């Protein structure tokens, strides 16, 4: 029986879909059976990030309306046989699905997979209710800025009414080039303090993420980029391994720089 994990954030544009795609891909890289569920009905994106948009025949709403079986709507990933996607409908809106129906679909898929990654839409309305309905646990994604942390706090409060305390991913963290620059930004510790959640991972700002989603290949598949490593570490933590946080490594930046000078790989 698999575990259903919902990826949520409250605010839009902090990287829910990218995170969903990459965690799913990284888990598949570890050989797990993974199904991605896009619940952002009307504004689906996950298929595009995964580069699977041209293969969609049936979608989530078709399944719920009985036009097809769940298995017919699933799309197999180009790269990994063990990675599937259930796309959202583009022509309907959030109100065409109820939390009960969502739970039914999730429960139907769970026995066939190790992990179900549910990509939640922005906001705290119907779409959010649908997304968390079938989940066993939640991951909250935030960026290190005040509006996004505020929304993450709000959404955490709502998640806690239904599920256990969520895990936290701080996304798009900028590596401070000058020390004084950091005073104007929240650092990862501030975010963790405010939200008082367990940190599942830190993903640094990395232009490779953008490039990868442009190509329709999640960055987790590319070797040696900072973001790719971060997502693969997150996947390992989800699997229960204890992997040191990248943010701790950042404090050793000086040594890492020297190492890289000598051509050694900075990250372990």
């Amino acid at each position, binding site marked *: 029986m698999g575990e259903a994990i919902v990826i949520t954030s409250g605010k839009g544009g902090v990287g829910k879909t990218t995170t969903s795609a990459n965690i799913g891909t990284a888990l598949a890289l570890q050989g797990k059976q993974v199904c991605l569920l896009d619940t952002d009905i009307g504004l689906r994106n996950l298929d595009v990030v995964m580069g699977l948009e041209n293969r969609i025949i049936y979608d989530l709403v078709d399944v719920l309306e009985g036009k097809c079986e769940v298995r017919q709507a699933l799309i197999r990933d180009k790269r990994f046989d063990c990675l599937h996607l259930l796309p959202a409908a583009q022509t309907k809106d959030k109100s065409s699905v109820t939390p009960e129906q969502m739970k039914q679909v999730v429960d139907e898929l769970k026995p066939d997979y190790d992990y179900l990654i549910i990509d939640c839409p922005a906001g705290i309305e119907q779409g959010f209710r649908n997304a968390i309905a079938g989940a066993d646990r939640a991951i909250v994604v935030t960026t290190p800025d*005040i509006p996004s942390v*505020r929304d993450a*706090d*709000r959404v955490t*409060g709502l998640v*806690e009414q239904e599920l256990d305390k969520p895990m936290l991913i701080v996304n798009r963290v900028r590596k401070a080039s000058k020390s004084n620059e950091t005073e*104007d930004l929240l650092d990862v510790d*501030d975010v963790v303090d*405010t939200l*008082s959640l367990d940190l599942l991972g830190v993903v640094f700002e990395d232009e490779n993420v953008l490039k990868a989603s442009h190509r329709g290949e999640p960055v987790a598949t590319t070797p040696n980029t900072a973001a790719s490593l971060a997502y693969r570490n997150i996947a390992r933590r989800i699997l229960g391994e204890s992997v040191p946080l990248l943010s701790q490594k950042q404090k050793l930046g000086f040594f890492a720089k020297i190492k890289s000078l000598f051509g050694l790989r900075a990250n372990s």
Partner: protein
Amino acid sequence: MKTSVQKQNVTIKGTKDGIIIHLNDQCGYDAMITELKLKLTESLSAFDPNKDVSVRVHLGKRYLEQEQQREIQQVIEESGAIVVDELISEVMTKKEAKKQQEQQELTTFTRLVRSGQVLRVKGDLLILGDVNPGGAVEAAGDVYVLGALKGIARAGIDGNENAIVAASVMVPSQITIADRLYLTEATRAERSIEMKKTEPKYACIEHQEEDIVFHAMSGLAAFRRDRKNEMD
């Protein structure tokens, strides 16, 4: 009335604390009112008509409805230059008792109050955890936060001006006590510095001041003592 020993239903006594009217709690209400009227007319000469005399009325174990309380007060005050200071009864209804208990109760929450969440109690409120920006805690009495108060706190929401808001780390975005409002004017940078070095503080309304003021927690004992003395 054929009882051999006529027990007085109304006695008026002068004590060093002022005049006290005792009303017997065993007789009928109407009989008591009649006698009260009679006694007051009789003893009216004892009061100085040019000066307001204040009296306290002891009701014993009699429970009076609001309307009856008003009637007694009216009867007494109509009879001369008398002002009823207080009606003292030994009994109250269960409803009143429950209300009073709620008002005096301290409710404890062991949790983080997140953005968009509101906690409200009728007595005092103790939060073991932070109140995050966008979160609100409200109490008819005091609000205590054993953690960082970064959101909104409202104390004395039913109008109690003696209520306070106390916090281990005091960086609120808003505090309301009774009808006074405090809005922070600190910038985010200032608040984040304050958050790191701050000492426990409490916020209160001071008589001379228009606004809510903040003090170190060490001053709270004196503040409480002063307010208690004022009330007695």
